[in-house]
């Protein structure tokens, strides 16, 4: 009975957006002294938003990113993702959430060097247990969205940095995620290429994809529709929709 009540209590909060963080803290226990990376973050992101998270290094933006990406769990507080309470899930359950609801784009691309572009993009579907034919079809579709379907049989080292990041974006999109998380996606690219990549994100956003982009580059943050600034473990600016 109480469990049902609890669920009923939570439901309005969960319904507020795709992502809801309530008083999230994260404390790292590094030997003798505790480090408080997040000191009570409240934040809500609706479906379809294109959000940037900015902040100086050590501000806690990476920690926030990890929690949003279900790579880490909050020490205290609540996190609802797409209606699901993910704050207290097991490692296995978090892996499932990452696989089905999230897409990651990293600064260093993180493609598997020995696999072809196609295999790289197929990888999330492989872990989801999708059939071989469907994997191939959907991976090619995702590659088409970033304009690289013609290079499917190539290996990552045969591509330029910008192309590699586009493959990574295709990989992030292949499982139709609720949220795409990009961690400094232009950090390893020159300005022109970086700008092209952001343009892809803009196009995805136009098509309704929810995107959270972590960056320290103000010029890039400018191009998102909503900017969240984090300093010293708390959000200081931008927790409102423009």
């Amino acid at each position, binding site marked *: 009975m109480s469990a049902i009540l609890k669920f009923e209590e939570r439901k309005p909060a969960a319904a507020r957006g795709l992502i809801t963080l309530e008083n999230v803290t994260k404390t790292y226990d590094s030997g003798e002294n505790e480090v408080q990376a997040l000191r009570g973050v409240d934040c809500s992101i609706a479906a379809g938003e294109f959000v940037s998270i900015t902040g100086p290094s050590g501000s806690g933006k990476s920690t926030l990113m990890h929690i949003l990406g279900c*790579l880490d769990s909050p020490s205290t507080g609540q996190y609802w993702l797409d209606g699901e309470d993910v704050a207290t899930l097991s490692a296995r359950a978090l*892996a499932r959430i990452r*696989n089905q609801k999230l897409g990651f784009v990293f600064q260093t691309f993180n493609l598997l060097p020995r696999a072809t572009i196609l295999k790289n993009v197929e990888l999330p579907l492989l*872990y989801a247990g999708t059939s071989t034919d469907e994997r191939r079809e959907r991976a090619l579709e995702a590659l088409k969205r970033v304009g690289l379907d013609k290079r499917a049989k190539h290996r990552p080292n045969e591509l330029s940095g910008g192309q590699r990041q586009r493959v990574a974006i295709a990989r992030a999109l292949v499982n139709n995620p609720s949220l795409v998380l990009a961690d400094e996606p232009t950090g390893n690219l020159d300005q022109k290429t970086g700008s092209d990549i952001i343009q892809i994100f803009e196009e995805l956003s136009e098509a309704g994809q929810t995107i959270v982009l972590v960056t320290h580059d103000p010029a890039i943050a400018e191009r998102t529709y909503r900017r969240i600034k984090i300093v010293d473990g708390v959000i200081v600016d931008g927790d409102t929709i423009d």
Partner: protein
Amino acid sequence: MILFESIIDGIRDIKDHFGRTMLQLLGVILGAGSIVATFSLSVTGKGQAMEYYRISGGIQKIYIDDKPTGKVTQNAKALASKGLTYHDVVALRRDAKEIDLVSPVSNQSMLIRYRTVEHERSIMGISPAYSPMNDFHAARGRFISDNDVASAARVVVLGSERAAEFFGSEDPLGKTITMNGSGYEVVGVMEEKYFSFDKKHNNMRWMNRQIYIPITTLVTRKGEALEQGKISFMHVRMRDIKRADQAVDETKHILQREHGVEDFEVFSRVANLKRNEQNNKMYDMTFMICGLISLIVGGIVVMNIQLASFNERVREVGTRKAIGATPAQIFVQFLTESILVSVFGGFLGLFVGQAFCAGMGLLLRATPQMSPDTAVKALIFAAGTGLVFGMYPAIRASRLNAIEALRTE
């Protein structure tokens, strides 16, 4: 699905790091190779021994020979004993219940002549039981018969080489040859006996060089009374292999009773086989342990390199985890790779084992053959090595923290 992809991935890994993989696999290759060689040698040896036994009359054969007692003081009966005589043959035929065939052999060298061909040759005086006892039959004409023995007939049966030696292309049947001055009618020519351990030399050739006459003829023509006739050795055949010990005991008992002294030896092929089996087991164990030790050493190397390559692949593991691989899936992937690499090593080990076999073939004049059974065993052992020693790296990979892994440069 994951398994299949992991296998593909493992194959790619072997291809991309061929040199490293080979180094990694050296222990497994040699281990599997020595297991293959051991089993092949053992199986082939046993098989050949059994085949030799089969072709020379089966394992029911018991060999009985004279043995000097070495005792200075002997009782009257012992002093009177002449060793094995025709009398023992009669006694065994009459009294032994575990024995169904008694085949005495008496040897003598004789000067043999047919027309211009003359040679000093060894003659065997035998009874008709010799033929079934040794599974050795006349190819043409007939073997020595009961009638021949009963009447001490002057008939002779030639081994195939002897027939060729004295008669060339001529038909020996019905011809008379002279042996120590007396004429003997050739009534039969034996089949050609062949068995080879090394596919080169006929280990049964000595049988093709025999000349047989009735034992009674040989004994009586030496001027001995038949009953006292000296026997060089004899074979007896047990009725039932399961009662081998009883057959040997009974034979010994009867001979002891007749001789009053143990001046004979009894060798049972069954007992011999059992003894050999014991020895073989020891050899097998020794070689197996050597093979297993090199597999273990190989396994440790596999684990080491797996751990080293794992450090190279920390980022990859982090990425896989970030996009949704569960710890179990990572575990399966790494373990599959170890097993696959080890099985690949085991597969190469089969060839190395074959090379060992060929090498031993040169030394032993008998080339051990690898049976499919042996190959499967070696591969299973190799896979086991991969499984056991891949476990730790796989567990480490599966427990890796994704965030830290992604942070690693």
